[in-house]
């Protein structure tokens, strides 16, 4: 059995090719989603009972170890039939150009877009490369989303009551949010917790506010190099963080928290606000089922543009070199159908990508789902920033939050790195 599995990666005995699903065929899936492993295995059993095709879900965690394994396998051409790609759109493009990912546009658009229309538009768009994309990838859809998540703010209703605030009226503007700091300090309650030791989390909020203050077009123009990071609008974005720091609305040590620490603090009622993703529903449920909390958008800093939040989809890709491509695609189609999506949503408390299911989720998840329209993601923008610039941006904001840099200094640094990288003429 072990030998069969070892040989199974991409090698099938001759004679079973073709589109007929014969019993005894095996499809191997690599993924990193620890909390979904049980649910996925249950679904695999159901699929095998239905079609005779065996699906094997292999879990490799944590996600950075998974990432390394997938990259190593790509080099050795030893990828399994189905796998997920973690990383930025740039990395996704690289995998496609290396010939590792199958183009699924035809399957998606067959029967007048039957499959595509089942799914949340944004979830599909995250896996799509549009015509004229800067990565040089042939336009098309290259992945299948199986669930969705958005990142927003949350607040503790019980603590709101203690502070004498209306638990159904969270702060709607940035000004209101900042002014709550006084009340927080009086009652010695930590304000906002979030996993800001992790660069991407702090960038997420920064870009959310960037979209809010200057609008999507200007942000993308900055990434293309047409607008400098020292532009007054960007300084405004950076200044939000220094204002948060000075007012005291941030919890102490927020820059040393990994997301798990922040979750644990919020779940145990030790913080009033959290900035976290919809996966937290599962986490908080496990740590403190009595927690009374609600979802809110980050309080807007400007009324000129809508507030934006990040959303992402966990997706599976089909190995272009797999000998079981057809069966793999069929399985993924099945996975995104209503019954399976409902099952996944119920067992793992994540947002389903099947539109029909969105009406049937728990109330707290529904609060996340309601804001999906405002969701965006770097993978949707068609332009990407140099990774070094993004890193400098993240670290710059961390420095602002610790009080070591002024917004102007951080902006100047980011711009300097941007100019240096642009000169290198890297793709």
């Amino acid at each position, binding site marked *: 059995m072990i030998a069969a599995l*070892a040989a199974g990666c991409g090698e099938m005995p001759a004679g079973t090719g073709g589109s007929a699903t014969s019993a005894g065929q095996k499809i191997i899936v690599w993924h*990193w*989603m*620890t*909390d979904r492993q049980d649910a996925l295995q249950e679904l695999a059993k159901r699929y095998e009972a239905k079609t005779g095709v065996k699906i094997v879900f*292999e879990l490799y*965690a944590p996600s950075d170890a998974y990432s390394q394994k997938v990259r190593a396998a790509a*080099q*050795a051409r030893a990828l399994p039939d189905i796998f997920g790609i973690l990383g930025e759109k740039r990395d996704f493009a690289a995998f496609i150009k290396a010939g590792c990912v199958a183009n699924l546009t035809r399957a998606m658009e067959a029967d007048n877009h039957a499959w595509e229309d089942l799914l949340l538009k944004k979830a599909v768009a995250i896996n799509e490369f549009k015509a004229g994309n800067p990565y040089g990838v042939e336009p098309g859809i290259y992945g299948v989303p199986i669930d969705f998540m958005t990142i927003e703010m949350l607040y503790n209703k019980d603590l709101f009551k203690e502070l004498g605030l209306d638990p159904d009226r969270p702060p709607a503007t940035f000004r209101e949010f900042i002014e709550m700091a006084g009340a927080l300090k009086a009652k010695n309650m930590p304000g906002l917790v979030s996993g800001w030791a992790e660069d991407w989390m702090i960038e997420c909020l920064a870009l959310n506010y960037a979209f809010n203050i200057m609008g999507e077009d200007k942000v993308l123009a900055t990434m293309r190099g047409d607008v400098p990071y020292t532009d007054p609008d960007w300084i405004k974005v950076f200044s939000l963080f220094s204002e948060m720091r000075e007012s005291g609305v941030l919890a102490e040590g927020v820059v040393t928290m990994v997301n798990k620490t922040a979750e644990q603090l919020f779940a145990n009622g030790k913080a009033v606000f959290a900035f976290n993703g919809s996966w937290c529903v599962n*986490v908080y449920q496990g740590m403190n089922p009595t927690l009374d909390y609600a979802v809110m958008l980050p309080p807007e800093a400007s009324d000129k543009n809508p507030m934006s939040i990040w959303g992402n989809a966990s997706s599976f890709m089909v190995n272009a070199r797999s000998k079981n491509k057809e069966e793999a695609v069929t399985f993924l189609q099945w996975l995104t159908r209503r019954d399976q999506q409902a099952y996944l949503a119920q067992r793992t408390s994540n947002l389903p990508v099947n539109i029909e299911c969105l009406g049937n989720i728990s109330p707290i998840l529904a609060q996340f789902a309601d804001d999906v329209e405002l969701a965006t993601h770097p993978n949707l923008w068609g332009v990407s920033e140099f990774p070094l610039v993004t890193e400098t941006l993240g670290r710059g904001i961390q420095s602002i939050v610790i009080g070591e840099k002024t917004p102007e200094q951080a902006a100047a640094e980011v711009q300097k790195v941007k100019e240096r990288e642009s000169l290198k003429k890297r793709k």
Partner: protein
Amino acid sequence: MLGTPPIRSNGYYKAKRVTLNGVIHLFLIGVAITCLYPLLWMASSSLKTQQTIFTDISLIPHPAHFENYIHAWHTGGFGRYFLNSIFYTASVVVGILVVASLAAYAFSRFRFRGRTVLFIMFMAAMMIPVPGSFVALFVLLNKLHLRNTPLGYILCMINVGLPMSIFLLKTFFDTMPRELEDAARIDGCSKIGMWRHVALPLARPVLAVVVVFNALNVWNEYLLALIVFDDKNLMPLQRALMVFRGEFLTNYPLLMAGLTITALPIIIVYLLMQKHIVRGVTAVFG
């Protein structure tokens, strides 16, 4: 009288010695407590629940959920991974004992071309980490058809422990008196015989140090195992712990139970080898 030092009684010296002893004991015990605390915290956390683990600061929780250990064992699939880890650790340790002692003996006792250069290369390996070597290793193992096999992993891990082990053993052999070997040679003993019957028995304490050092490395290793193995059934112990540390949700009490289960065998190995280890360290470094 002026100028004569006061005569101190025996009681004075005794009191001084007792106080000094007392202070030393306090110092030792103090440090020992700080060393034990994390172990105790780990064990006590493993008896709590996900809800209470961060809110309950007590060292002995009431109620104590001993069933967490049974839970952890099953959920983590510890049984299989435990056996795998024992197998890998034992194989790697035995492999290194043989390969490193042969090489160290040669570096110490024989003269041959390239002796210094080769030894320096091994030493340099201790200093130059190779980040990202896993990609090269993966491709290499794949070509050798050793990927996703126990042998592939074991060979890689033998390599990881080789430089330090060779260094320890060579240092010891260098200080080993030659009379016994001279006597053996006169009796017509071959080189292999000398290695087996003279050097190894004398080196037993150092071998104990090599055992513990490498056992620790292999037991706690995870990343290479994850990269080399596809098949879950071949994975070592650390894989079981990863099950508790999900992408988003960490099951802390079970994780702590798992960590305790993981830490115990190594502590036991150390306990068993302890007598030899101190002698071994003495032999090499003393």
